[in-house]
């Protein structure tokens, strides 16, 4: 079985995600882009996991890892959205450029 197409899909999703994280000003979109990145990684993990299944049938590390990532991602989105919500409440904006209190 070839994993190339899966890897390619993952890379495309990853690039879209990176673009979203770096270029969008809307914090919700940034969060969504992060989701994309994480999912691209999940695709890779599952693809490699299936590939290893051929030689080592008992090994499901890739799939298990992917499940972990999904759970973390859910938590991350939960916290992230809560922060966004608070920022919005305080500033009536979710533009990520405006949030630069940590500026040195």
């Amino acid at each position, binding site marked *: 079985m070839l994993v190339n197409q899966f890897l390619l899909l993952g890379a495309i999703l990853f690039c879209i995600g*990176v673009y979203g*994280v*770096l*270029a969008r000003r809307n914090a919700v979109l*940034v969060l969504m882009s992060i989701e994309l990145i994480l999912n691209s990684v999940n695709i890779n993990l599952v693809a490699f996991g299936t590939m290893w299944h051929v030689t080592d049938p008992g090994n499901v590390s890739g799939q298990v890892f992917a499940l972990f990532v999904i759970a973390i991602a859910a938590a991350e989105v939960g916290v992230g959205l809560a922060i966004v919500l608070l920022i919005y409440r305080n500033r009536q904006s979710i533009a*990520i*450029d405006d*949030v*630069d*209190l*940590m*500026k*040195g």
Partner: protein
Amino acid sequence: MIPNILDSAWLVPAIMAASFLLILFFGKRLGTRATAGIGITAVSIALVLSVCVAGQWINRVNNPPTGAKLAADVIASNGLTPQTGRNILGEVIATTSESGETVAAGAGIRATSGESAMSGASSAAAVAEQAASEGSATEGEHGGEHGGEHESVPPIVHATTWFTVAGINFEVGTLVDGLAAMMLITVCIISLLVHIYSTEYLHGDIRFTHYYAFLSLFTASMLFYVLSSNTLQMLVGWELVGVCSFGLIGHWWEEKKNTDAALKAFLTNRVGDMGLIIGVVITFFAAGATSFNVLHINEYALGGQANTALLLVGALCLFGGVTSKSGQFPLHTWLPDAMAGPTPVSALIHAATMVVAGVYLIARLYAVFFTGLGIGSSSLHYVAFIGGFTTIIGGLLAFVQTDLKKVLAYSTISQLGYMVMALGVGAWTAGVFHLFTHAFFKACLFLGAGSVSHACHHTFDMREMGGLRKKMPITHATFLVATLALAGIFPLAGFWSKDEILAGANAGQQQAYTLMLIFGLITAFLTAAYMGRAYWMTFWGEYRGHAHPHESPKVITVPLIILSVCAVLFGFTNFPKSFFGLQLPGGVTTRFEHYVEPTFAFPPLQHAEFTPWLAVVSTILAAGGLFLAYQYYERNRGPHGLTQRSTVARAGYTFLENKYYLDVLYTDIIAADTKGPLARASYWFNMNVLDGVVNGLGTGARKIAGFVYRDIDQLVLDGIVNGSGSVSEKSGQILRHVQTGRVQQYAAILFAGAVVLAGVFVFVI
């Protein structure tokens, strides 16, 4: 049987001490009458006891202890080391067997002798037995008396341990002999009369109670001193009488003049006490460093092995104490100032008793002076000379005084000089006899002066008196008797004692004291002259004051009468053996000498016989003095106004008026410089040098610390610390710009980094 008061003589001072405590604690509450009552009662009891002491002593001399009892007495009373005990015992037995006493075997000795003397006693017992077998037949009780000597009668000594340090036994005890008994009687009589006299004289005084408390304390201390069995105890009594004197001179302490006088008296005495303290220490060590016992020290001084040089130093140091206490030149200056105290006090303390403490000291430790100064052998020596010199300078000063009390004060100095001179020339009995007679007539004079002043608005200025003989007949009569006694007119007390001194100086030891004889004769003249001056100025002529003098009440006059009677009679107590050919029976003549002069631990003295030509010369001189004074002051004849006309006379007068400038030397130079420049210099030294060093060390330490802090700690060490801090800060300033706060920028950099890393992984590795 009368209880043996000789053995409990301590009661005499104890009664006075009890009186002091009573007055001190209850006097204020009991009121003045009761206070005076307590004092008078106590002194009366003390006087009765003293008379008993004297009586029993006379009895003891008449019936001297013999043999074993004598030896036991000596051993038990001295309670010395076995070594000394043996020596004394040997001597006693030797003397008694010489004088023909039967010395019994020493059976009784062991029973009575003290533990410390055990070995001495037992070994002495053998000596005693031997002596007994050798002793010749008895010669009768007064056998030896005809030669002026009689049996050796040891004093009665009772001592108990006060404390023991490093093997040295400090004792406290009583020593009763003729000298002590004589002093007891003198002190008690005068003290009693002064107690009585003061009830009127200090009537209504603000410090009546204090006054009586001090009188009691003084009497107690004086009696304690007189009865002392050892030198340390004498030192204690000596200082205590000094304090009482201080308190009584400063009785009216509101006025600075009085407190100055009190201070001067105490401090001058302290200067002398320094000598006394050292003298006590030296005699203690000189006599083997085992005991302060007077007899022990005397015994040692008479023993062959005495270190004469050390005794000389000791005697001179002791004489330092005598110089101040007994007003000898050059420490006599406090005595006239001490007249600032109430007059009865002057009579008691500064004429009759305390000031003779010094004379008493010499008399008590006579062996030390005798051996140390070589009284028996040398010619002129310090003590005799100072005594003689003091008589003259005191007598001269009395002439320029206008204050009646000061005349008497200088007279006292002069007479004390007489006593010291007598002791100095070896006329022990004469000196002590003069002490005895002088006490009464001088007290009489002082109390008479007090009576006069009591009548004349409390002034003592003779220029404001005069003509008092009619207004105060009793005072006048007693004053006259005392004046004549002091001048030495036959047959009053002063005649006998003064004459004995002159005879002693004349006979001297190998005619060595001719200078003293000249001093004495000059003084005899001076005394009569200045006393005549005082007498005529006070009692004759017209009254010059502004008061209304009247005779004093009985409380004052009766003591005066008693004292004047004493002044008449007491001279006969030592009636010479041969008086212009008159030879009275032996039981009447020289009684004073017989009973008072010690026969135990006492140097061998020659006794000068009555010298007719001296008696005549001195009487002529005295009469001449009185006559000249009469002519000059009463008749207004003679070179009046000499001081205005002659420069020499004026200079002499000024010199006398300024008291030989000794007060200037002491007060203005020595004292002022000590408490002025010297004290300030010391303090300056303390504050600037010593404290300066300390503060300088402090400042130096602070400076060094400042340097260390600023230049090392702050600059270098802290510089490193701070430097590291500021470097971080500066770099932070630069780097802060990297932190934009933009999450996306961070993410971009993150990704860029990841890309670079990926590149590195892929292409480089």
